[in-house]
């Protein structure tokens, strides 16, 4: 399983993150300040780094900039308690791959870390995604479900593509919204559920063979079916 470095100065938060990620199956290493974090990130072989924005000794963004300058391309998820709205932009500009504002749900954190870890593993371009009996042709932009061609609207196609890229992994509503619509704000609405509901009906009109599963209060998981 993937190795994750958690750079966070608050011991209790670090312990909670560590425990959530370990339970999920990651191997976790921790660093309590910026300089230890930088040293470990430079030397260790990590698949994902979870980096707090404000750290003692070396600030999170400075650490990230140094890391990228040293050609270390490990995916980084930035955590921030800062409230300014362009924090996210600053974080991503400095070389971050994803951003999560405190307070966050730990299930959302693990889902994002998992997505980053997979992105690193499957970095090469693919023309087709296959999950169980679902086959998504990225060139022709066609979805086949159990051999049957399914007609999808452009945004529905994008949602299915995102779910298939993260098959077997919990993805939050926010992750789907950010990935498919490309806008970033703390959106709290059940609209994504309605989209998922429509896709479910298209994939499985009788409701006998569910592929997209809802996780209460959190998000969805696409699981392979025979």
């Amino acid at each position: 399983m993937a190795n994750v470095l958690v750079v966070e100065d608050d011991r209790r938060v670090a312990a909670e993150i560590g425990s959530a990620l370990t339970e999920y199956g990651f191997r976790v290493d921790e660093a309590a300040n910026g300089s230890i974090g930088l040293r470990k990130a430079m030397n260790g072989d990590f698949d994902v780094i979870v980096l707090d924005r404000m750290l003692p000794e070396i600030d999170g963004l400075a650490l990230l900039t140094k890391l990228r300058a040293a050609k270390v391309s490990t995916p980084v998820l930035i955590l921030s308690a800062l409230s300014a709205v362009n924090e996210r932009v600053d974080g991503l500009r400095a070389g971050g791959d994803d951003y999560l504002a405190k307070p966050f749900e730990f299930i959302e954190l693990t889902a994002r870390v998992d997505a980053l870890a997979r992105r690193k593993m499957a970095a090469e371009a693919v023309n087709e995604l296959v999950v169980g009996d679902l086959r998504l042709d990225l060139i022709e932009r066609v979805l086949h479900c159990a051999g049957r061609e399914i007609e999808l609207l452009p945004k529905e196609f994008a949602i299915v593509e995102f779910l298939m890229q993260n098959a077997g992994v919990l993805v939050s509503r926010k992750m789907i919204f950010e990935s498919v619509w490309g806008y970033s704000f703390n959106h709290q609405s059940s609209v994504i559920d309605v989209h998922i509901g429509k896709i479910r009906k298209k994939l499985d009109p009788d409701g006998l063979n569910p592929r997209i599963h809802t996780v209460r209060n959190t998000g969805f998981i696409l699981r392979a079916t025979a």
Partner: protein
Amino acid sequence: MRLLEVRRTSGFRVACLFFATFGTASLALSGFLYLDTRSYGRRAAFEWVGWESKHLLSLAPRALRERIDASEDFAEGGRPLVLFGPDHAHRAGAPISFPEKAPVGHPFILTQQTDQGPRTLFSELTRLPGGEYVLVSRSAKDLEALEKALVETFVWGMAATVVIGLIGAVIFGAGSLRQNDAITRAVERIMRGDLSERLPTRGVSADLAHLTGVVNDMLGQLERLMLEIKGVNENIAHDLRTPLTRVVGTLERSLRKANSVEAFRACNEDALAEVKSIVVRFSALLRISEMEDRLRRSGFTQVDLARLLEDAVEYYEPLALEREIRLRWERPGEPCTVEGDRSLIFEAVSNLIDNALKFTPAGGEVEVALRRDPPGIRVTDTGCGIPADELGEVRERYRRGALKTGKSGFGIGLSLVDSIARLHSAAFDIASDAGGTQVTLVWRPAAKSAGHLASIPAPTA
């Protein structure tokens, strides 16, 4: 009157400086006038003496003697003539002894002692062909009187100038002290917490009035923000207490009653859901405050409103379909760009559509439209409308519209839209009646005056 304080005011000092400058110039002019008058008087006196000497030289001895005998006494300020023998002995005329040191044939000043004190004479000593000498003089008494009168006039004039100057400076100083006192009193009242107080703009000098005007504008802005913060605090307190009470209740219940893992889990999930709802509400409030942060504007880019509305409509279409509401949208052919933050504009648009869908009954219609020249967004619904008395309040920060529909969460969304509009210098307008609501967000052509919303009328549907 606080004279010491007046003395330190800029009004007093400027007035003093002005009068000092003016006084120095007057003094220089008076001095020049005095010296010129004096020199002219002397020159004229010496000219007369020279001319008279030449005239006497041309007279016959007898006529000369008669003329000398008839001459005036110098003591009375007249024009005395004196005849001296070749031995310098006095022969006729005024009782003046021979001026031994005087140059012959040249004018000089002769001082003579009399009973009334020393007398100054403008004189010339001439040698007659017979070896005798004649002294022609003219008293300086008239000239001295004129000089004295001039000096007195100047002294009195200067004294009057100084007195008038000082009185003027005190009046000016007292005036500026009065202005300062009025401003100080106003500032003290503001410091004590009365933010409705304003600095005086009447009865103050024009340059100060401009400054107090600017400060008053600033105070107005501060007052507005303070009231908003106060309102937000009160609303946060009011709105967070209820869910917090529920969290406390749930956790206490779990400790008191839960006797199985499942029961604890259920309580935990309830508490977690409450905490999440608190976090959402709190984040929304924080976001509104952040909108005021002008730094956000540094991230502005060109945003295509047509594309953005298309995305928003695509996002909400399934929800509208589910609720049996017709979501009308005509795809524009051309892009329509404005300067802004695309995520924030999307957030505003999604709030508007979300609200419209929430308050429109099944079978109703929501129309999303793009406006051009100036660019803008219009969302119209056939919902229940907002009562006229609530229309003004509805977009005030953090107000929950207690509308008859019973649906919650109205106010905070529109407050967010209002803040986003402010940040983009866009005009945000709501028009509503029983037949529905129309909300417009219009970018003003020259987006320079941020933070101040001029209400523009909403177009008719």
